[in-house]
């Protein structure tokens, strides 16, 4: 499959929104507007492309590192800024926080800050779809760490027995918190776990957004057609810390530099320029526009939270005058 130009640009657009949203979210948090440590997906934005390969009726689930998946699914960034600072205009009314975000308009069935809780839920959703005769897939995203939990294997086993189309997208970002993946799995490719279930296990270069988009499209097609789950493992790298509070003492700078040089956004930008899909100037302009927009959305979110506070403060002052 050769990806069309428009899709390539749309993917880059989503990836850039994710990156620039996260950078702005970090600033917003550092300003004191939130105390929640953020699980940024910087370096892993190509996963957005996997979400974009889905149809609107497909179900999406994610773990705690979810901004790229939420934005890939189409959640408006302003709803995430609002959620981050605990505003009632947030995607979950400021009640769940971003790591628990859900959006029923987009069939995004939620995240959870507790690892591996999405896998069993995915089975229930796929069972529902089967009862309803729906031909949709359930896309269940999780990390390499979560893919070592019993819940992951329980869910795959059940999905096989019930012939459920679920794509278990394992985002292998080389770490689970401070633990390197090599200390978590005894195999180099988590996708090889699929063999024990008799299902396909696919490995894709997670920093090649086009490859991710295409692999996801194939995995979804295969899963629906054959009514079996598929494991799709994307090899990528978490450029940011586990959370924004992470001092990153457990890894070498040289490793990070290598991966920065193989950054997914740069890779896709290069593809777009080299194939004459767009000009460097266009991409720079796109980036600047998004950056300004993120700053604006973040300031607006902050302002909307401050307004009621200022109103209540001035009330107190009035009271004091009497």
């Amino acid at each position, binding site marked *: 499959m050769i990806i069309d130009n428009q899709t390539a640009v749309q993917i880059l657009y989503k990836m850039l929104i994710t990156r620039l949203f996260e950078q702005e979210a970090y600033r917003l948090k550092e300003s004191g507007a939130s105390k929640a440590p953020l699980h940024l997906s910087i370096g892993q934005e190509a996963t957005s492309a996997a979400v974009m390969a889905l149809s609107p009726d497909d179900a999406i689930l994610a773990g705690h590192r979810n901004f790229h998946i939420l934005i890939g699914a189409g959640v408006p960034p302003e709803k995430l800024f609002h959620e981050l600072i605990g505003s009632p205009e947030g995607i979950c009314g400021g009640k*769940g926080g971003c790591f628990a975000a859900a959006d029923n308009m987009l069939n995004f069935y939620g995240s959870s800050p507790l690892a591996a809780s999405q896998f069993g839920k995915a089975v*229930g959703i796929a069972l529902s779809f089967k009862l*309803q005769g729906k031909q949709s897939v359930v896309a269940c995203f999780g990390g390499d760490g979560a893919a070592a939990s019993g819940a992951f294997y329980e869910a795959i086993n059940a999905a096989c027995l*019930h012939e459920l189309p679920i794509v278990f997208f394992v985002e292998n970002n080389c770490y689970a918190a401070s633990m390197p993946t090599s200390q978590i799995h005894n195999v180099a490719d988590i996708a090889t776990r699929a063999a024990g279930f008799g299902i396909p296990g696919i490995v894709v270069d997670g920093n090649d957004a086009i490859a991710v988009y295409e692999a996801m499209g194939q995995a979804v097609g295969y899963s629906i057609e054959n009514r079996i789950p598929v494991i799709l493992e994307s090899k990528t790298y978490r450029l940011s810390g586990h959370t924004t509070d992470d001092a990153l003492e457990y890894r070498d700078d040289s490793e990070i530099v290598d991966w920065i040089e193989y950054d997914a956004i740069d890779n896709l930008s290069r593809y777009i320029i080299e194939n004459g899909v767009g000009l460097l100037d266009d991409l720079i302009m796109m980036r600047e526009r998004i950056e300004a927009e993120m700053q604006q959305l973040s300031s607006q979110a902050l302002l909307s939270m401050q307004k009621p506070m200022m109103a209540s403060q001035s009330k107190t002052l009035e009271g004091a005058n009497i």
Partner: protein
Amino acid sequence: MTFIDFEQAFSETVASVMRNDGSVVYIGDRMTDLAEEFGQRIISLPYGENLAASAALGLAMTGAKPILRIPGELLLRYADAIGNEIALADTAYDSQYDSSVIIIADIGYKEFSGPHLSQSFEAVFCQFPGLAVVYPSNPEDEASLIRSAASYNGPVLILENSGFEAAYNSLPGPAAMVGRSKLVREGTDITIASYGPIVNSCISAADLAYATGIECEIIDLISLNPLDSRPVIESLKKTGKLIIVHESRKACGVGAELSAQIAESDALFYLDSKILRVCSKDQPIPYSKADFSKATPNEEDILKAIIQLSTGE
């Protein structure tokens, strides 16, 4: 409708609820006889407690009404998905998705079961905000509670103890409901608040006490979370004396919460003696009949408490 036991109440009621509402699905392994009638709505899942409870939530979020039947002794293995996901989903997702899962578990103390298979976790699950917990004393109430839970907005844990040796009393009053206790015997001297099948032992103890001229009022709490303590408070206005009876251990039990709610209410001033709690000993429940009966409360213990309170000793 009367049922001979919890099992019959359960299976007949679930079948009837499923007939009335096509969105109800059943997850468990005891309804194979209904597979023909309900087809794919009877779901059997491979072992995996997190799987079953999480799948139930996934089903609820997509328009199904799942009834999940689980072995009570495994409740703690399900507790993660129940307490962390099912009970929290409504708040965390700001009510965007339904999370009304009905979970039915057979818990409580049973002779010849040993410590692992004799556990009473109701108070543990009352610590999960967002989860309603009910514990019927008899099969008719269980049937009513399954119906009530099926129309309740939110997850409900229905507990039962099928191994409790008791002659079930078909109790008077309206059908049992999530959130409501029930006055099951009127009396003027002592209030007894209890729940689960041991309510039947309270009734027989109260019968014996009646012969000696002591009239006990009995409230079957039924709903443990939310705890419907108001009728107990009202009853204390009349009796001034309270005995709380439950099978599970005393410390941090439902009785402790009820005592605290009484102490925080006006009922504190209606009390004319201390509150007594009749509960099991604070220890794992042993296997043998002799050791089992030493550890768990019975009719005799309840009667003793009644006499103690009425004689003021």
